[in-house]
């Protein structure tokens, strides 16, 4: 029996093996040299707020990708949550009820996605492409394409609340991140997402209800989209079909940059959080460096491909020397 060789690796090697960490530090150092003012507290704080709002949804995308699925409708669900939440607030004037109903709506929408994928056996790409368009349509019908807003006092309070100098959004994200990470890493329910996405047939034979796991991952995504949408409302006190159109793909990008393979069965939310940090920092830096808005998408796309390329290169190198 050959013993499995474990390569020891020096700290530098470790750093390179975690592409996202390497990228993050490299980027921070780069900005510190080129534009030291980028690293002011105010700026970092605003980066963290954006990371928090998008990051909540990205957690859901990560769980979906781990289970071998995908959700294009996240951006639409996020919009719908904003629109619905504001309407509920304005009608009921009761924040807890509005929050509860918005969460419920997310749960239902996500579960519908999941059931279509698992029970009707329609590929998740097609399913969520369909629901993405439908939910977007629903929002437009509901708002007549106009912006909606609220000035509910409770929401304003949440939006501007700070603790230890950090925005409340950051803590909401932190809690979500911790809970989801704990579920993924340390419960059978969580590990079954990995088994399902890693090898569906093997998971099924092991007695795991794979349809349930997949549906659950969509349901969780739905809930997280609602939370993300409500956080945005708390920040802007407004909602619109224009906010967050790039959310789904940004979440996928964050997941991938974090080092989660799209093929499923591996990854975790903490990595995605780092991936999201990289992306948001990049967005902000592009603005900060005065790059014309039209060029920004060009750079974002390029960076995504470069990161994945680098990651592949490193893992291939490791596989070779194993």
């Amino acid at each position, binding site marked *: 029996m050959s*013993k499995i060789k474990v390569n020891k690796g020096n700290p530098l090697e470790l750093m390179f093996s975690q592409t996202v960490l390497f990228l993050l530090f490299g980027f921070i150092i780069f900005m510190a040299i080129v534009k030291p003012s980028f690293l002011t507290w105010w700026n970092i704080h605003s980066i963290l707020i954006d990371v928090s709002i998008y990051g909540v949804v990205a957690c859901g995308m990560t769980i979906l990708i781990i289970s071998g699925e995908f959700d294009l409708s996240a951006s639409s669900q996020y919009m719908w949550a904003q629109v619905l939440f504001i309407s509920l607030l304005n009608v009921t004037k009761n924040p807890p009820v509005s929050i509860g109903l918005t969460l419920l709506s997310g749960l239902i929408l996500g579960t519908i996605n999941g059931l279509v994928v698992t029970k009707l056996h329609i590929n998740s790409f097609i399913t969520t492409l369909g629901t993405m368009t439908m939910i977007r349509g629903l929002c437009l019908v509901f708002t007549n394409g106009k912006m909606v807003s609220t000035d509910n006092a409770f929401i304003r309070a949440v939006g501007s609340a700070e603790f230890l100098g950090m925005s409340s959004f950051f803590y909401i994200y932190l809690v979500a991140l911790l809970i989801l990470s704990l579920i993924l890493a340390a419960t059978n329910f969580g590990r079954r997402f990995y088994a399902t996405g890693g090898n569906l047939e093997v998971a099924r034979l092991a007695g795991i209800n794979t349809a349930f796991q997949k549906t659950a991952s969509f349901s969780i995504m739905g809930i997280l989209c609602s939370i993300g949408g409500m956080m945005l409302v708390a920040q802007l006190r407004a909602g619109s079909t224009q906010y967050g159109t790039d959310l789904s793909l940004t979440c996928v990008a964050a997941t991938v940059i974090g080092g989660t393979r799209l093929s499923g069965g591996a990854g975790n939310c903490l990595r995605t959080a780092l991936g999201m940090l990289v992306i948001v920092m990049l967005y902000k830096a592009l603005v900060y460096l005065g790059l014309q808005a039209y060029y920004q998408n060009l750079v974002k796309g390029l960076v995504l491909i470069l990161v994945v390329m680098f990651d592949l290169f490193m893992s291939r190198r490791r596989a070779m020397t194993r």
Partner: protein
Amino acid sequence: MRPLSSNPRLPHGFSTFVKQKTSKRETSVEKYILEMRDITKTFPGVKALDKVSFAVKQGEIHGLVGENGAGKSTLMKVLNGVLVPDSGTIVVDGVPVTFRNAKQAQACGISLIYQEFNLVNTLSVAENIYLGFLQTGRAKFIDWTRVRADAAHLLENLGFDFNVREKVQNLSVAEKQLVEIAKALSVNARIIAMDEPTSSITKKEIDKLFSIIRRLKERGITIIYISHKLDEVMAICDSVTVLRDGHIIDTKIATETSSAEIISKMVGRPVDMKYPRRPPIIHDEIVLEVRKVSCAGFVKDISFSLKKGEVLGIAGLVGSGRTELVEAIFGARPLQGGDVYIHGRRTSIRNTADGKRYSMGLVTEDRKETGLALHYSLADNIVITNLQKLCSGIFVNKKLMQANVDQYVQELGIKTPSSRQAVMYLSGGNQQKAVLAKWLFSEVEILILDEPTRGIDVGAKYEIYLLMNDLVKKGKSIIMISSELPEVLGMSDRVIVINEGRKKGELCGDAISPEAVMSMAIQ
């Protein structure tokens, strides 16, 4: 698994002895722990099982043999709840049962080692063993320390030396097989069915497995053992059941029968089991020369040459670097040093397309992962390696393709309702034949075979040896890796032995003997 080491001081067979005593007069009529009655299972176009009745006694090791496609795996999957039979009943311990999934069968004390790997590559060894149902501690949280300790303990008890945190994707085929064995033993099963557990492990691990099986038997656990290696079956089993074309042919007490009898029952006629002789046809021309090749980080400085018309065997333990070596030569893995010469010309082979261009072919050891496009038809899988041969103009000539495919299906005896069947639905051995057919069809000059007869029945093996002889007669050359030492010795003109990534020696002619090879392989 702790129970393995329980009661170490009890004499062999003590528990069964106690049972027999308490059941007084029934000593001569042993109890059937499992009875499968009139099981029928049809797939589109195939009647895989036709009124099969199969009974296994408490505490015995029961062999199940038959040609490729006879229905052995299907029968086990029915037992395990993975497949639902069209009709028939299963009785466990006198109680009729129906299982709708593997978990229910497990709860009833039945576990199955599947013929094909059943592991999640992205997860660790420990997690795979208890997949989806990991030990939890406080507040439903997984107790990882406990899970890893249990897994390590289980493997240690089996005498396997593993890092339980390693991801399964980093394991070799043999190591994966050992994890499968551990996984089946991790649930406290009363009946363990093993579907070709030794098809990809070497003598050393097989011996280990056998001692585990004997220990399980001492504890009163019943084993159903499927294998194409009849000497193994005869060595370890108490009784043997033969299955042919979905029918039970006979059940025999192992000591009252012989391999020859079993084979003739399997095939329906007596079979010559010798390795077919071939006249010496080796040319002087060297087609392939490998100089100081290194790869995969641990295979170092290997040199050898291959002549036209020669069969070169590569022997060595599993994990010695045999597979890595041939993969590097073919271009499936980067070379880290050394040169490969073909017809005396230095080559730079960087990928498999290069390897193919130099007229090499590689039959990989893992048919499911790297050998076949599982969702595609048998025909498509076979012709993929040499489409040019079938083309008239830019189009594939369907008639020509069908004729070629039919020829291989017939020559290799691939059992399938039609050549349009997706290969994923073929039995394990028939899939292996498909991989072979694919490279036989390619008509390459240098054919590299990595475990070519893995999971293939005795009759078909002989056919494959004949085909190999045909190939070398036509002036092709073959490199063959096999964990079955007799096969390497029986078929090779020359043998090189690899040990921990180094070439330990080269034997030819009369110097080739099992002792010589083994001493180099393990020293």
